[in-house]
């Protein structure tokens, strides 16, 4: 979190970033490296039923600078740096925060097989492996609920990757990196596979394991992630299994992200949590996409990682693409819970208008 004294520094960073974007070669240009930018601006209206209160306001979303380029024949670099406006709910301060989302060097040692070292997104599911932080690629205005509680979004480590192998375009990612609590002594392991049987379709599965010694720490999850209701500070084994099905580049667009976690503690044994996100959209002429979405999460009473929690949201939306670099999404969602005894989430409605853009 930044204080007022840092605001001048932030302005300088902003100026430098914009100079970099506008003075460097764009994507698809003739240079050996490219710089581009992504960002979004949104307006939200929320109505809470229990309190009969509403919240309304504009929000400046994440602004990202994206750099990529080749380093000789076999090596390449990719970096993604973001500036975020954040509000600290504990001390009610606000300000801009910078972060390195991705910074990695890729060594393409043979054919479509590579080794990647650095900070990267975990390949746990389609969303995290394809969309990253760029809202312009998101099919809906926000991420699945599982991102707030279950998924490790980032990882700092080493990965072996293969892609587009054989007729089914098989791909694999095997990775080890820092743990969810930032503990180097208990690295996390990820194995992910996928196939792309036709253009625009990808079917994948992944397994993630991490031994967490102190459950109170939340690292490598996204900035709004938190533990739903758990005060547990002890050790646990965290297993995450994900299945993804994505079908795009056809009029009927489908994305389904299923996640389940198995956490094991000495005191309460094995506990299971589930989450599933479903998006169905109908793309008309590459420009107009009405859609529906449904997303739920449920964690058990004996799940000491998150604590008991359940929430469901469903809604309708419309995406209007002005160009590949600019789109507008309008979305109405109903947030509620489906189990009144298991720490239910509050009921509310949310309307979001989101402009997302890319500069390339």
């Amino acid at each position, binding site marked *: 979190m930044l204080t007022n004294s840092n605001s001048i520094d932030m302005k300088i960073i902003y100026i430098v970033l914009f100079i970099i974007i506008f003075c460097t070669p764009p994507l698809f240009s003739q240079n050996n490296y490219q710089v581009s930018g*992504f960002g979004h601006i949104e307006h939200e209206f929320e109505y809470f039923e229990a309190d009969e209160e509403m919240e309304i306001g504009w929000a400046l979303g994440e602004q990202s600078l994206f750099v990529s380029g080749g380093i000789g024949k076999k090596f*390449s670099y990719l970096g993604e740096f973001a500036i975020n406006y954040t509000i600290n709910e504990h001390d009610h301060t606000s300000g801009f925060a910078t972060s390195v989302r991705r910074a990695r060097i890729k060594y393409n040692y043979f054919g479509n097989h*590579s080794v990647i070292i650095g900070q990267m997104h975990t390949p746990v599911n389609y969303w995290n492996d394809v969309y990253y932080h*760029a809202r312009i690629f998101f099919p809906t205005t926000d991420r699945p609920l599982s991102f707030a509680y279950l998924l490790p979004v980032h990882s700092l480590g080493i990965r072996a990757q293969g*892609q587009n192998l054989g007729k089914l375009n098989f791909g694999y990612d095997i990775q080890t990196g820092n743990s969810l609590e930032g503990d180097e002594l208990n690295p996390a392991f990820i194995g992910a596979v996928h196939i792309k049987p036709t253009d625009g379709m990808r079917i994948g599965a992944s397994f993630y394991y991490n031994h967490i010694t102190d459950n109170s720490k939340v690292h490598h999850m996204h900035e709004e992630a938190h533990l739903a209701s758990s005060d547990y500070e002890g050790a646990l084994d965290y297993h995450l299994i994900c299945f993804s099905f994505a079908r795009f580049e056809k009029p009927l667009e489908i994305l389904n992200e299923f996640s389940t976690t198995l956490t094991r503690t000495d005191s309460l044994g094995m506990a299971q949590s589930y989450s599933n996100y479903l998006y169905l959209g109908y793309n008309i002429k590459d420009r107009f996409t009405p859609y529906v979405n449904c997303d739920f999460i449920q964690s058990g009473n004996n799940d000491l990682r998150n604590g008991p929690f359940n929430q469901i949201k469903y809604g309708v939306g419309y995406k209007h693409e002005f160009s590949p*670099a600019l789109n507008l999404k309008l979305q109405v969602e109903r947030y509620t819970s489906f189990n009144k005894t298991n720490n239910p989430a509050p009921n509310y409605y949310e309307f979001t208008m989101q402009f997302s853009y890319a500069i390339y």
Partner: protein
Amino acid sequence: MQSIKRPISVIVFVGLLLLTSNFAICQNYTSRISIVGNSIDNKTYTVGEVQSILKGKINNWKNGNRVLIVLRFNEDRKSEYLAREIYNKSINGVKKYWLGLVFQGRTDAPIFAADNEEVLRLLKKRKGAIGVLVDYKNTPPPELTVKISKSRQ
């Protein structure tokens, strides 16, 4: 006379069969699209192989050179034709496709050249580059020409 007519009809039939069959070798990708390459693995590819390469599914050639895609691509009707024939997409669809792929870090960004001459100029400078020309009036230099075989898709 009868004995001469029969071989001629057989030759004509076989010739027609070869011309219309999948064994034919064709110079261009389509009548309007030519493929050119500099220091890439082969001089002949099937339509399926070229589509796969141009969709960014191959990172490196077997000869060690990095794959660099150069498309004659802007906002005109010729680019519309290229987008439909190779990517089965609109111009915006192709841009979106590459924007997503590059952002994922899975492949290098292609170069969008303004015209055929620029494609050839860039191609000559970069080993491992494969380019697409649309409605090119002249014949591409023989050392850069990539033939398209329609035999195995």
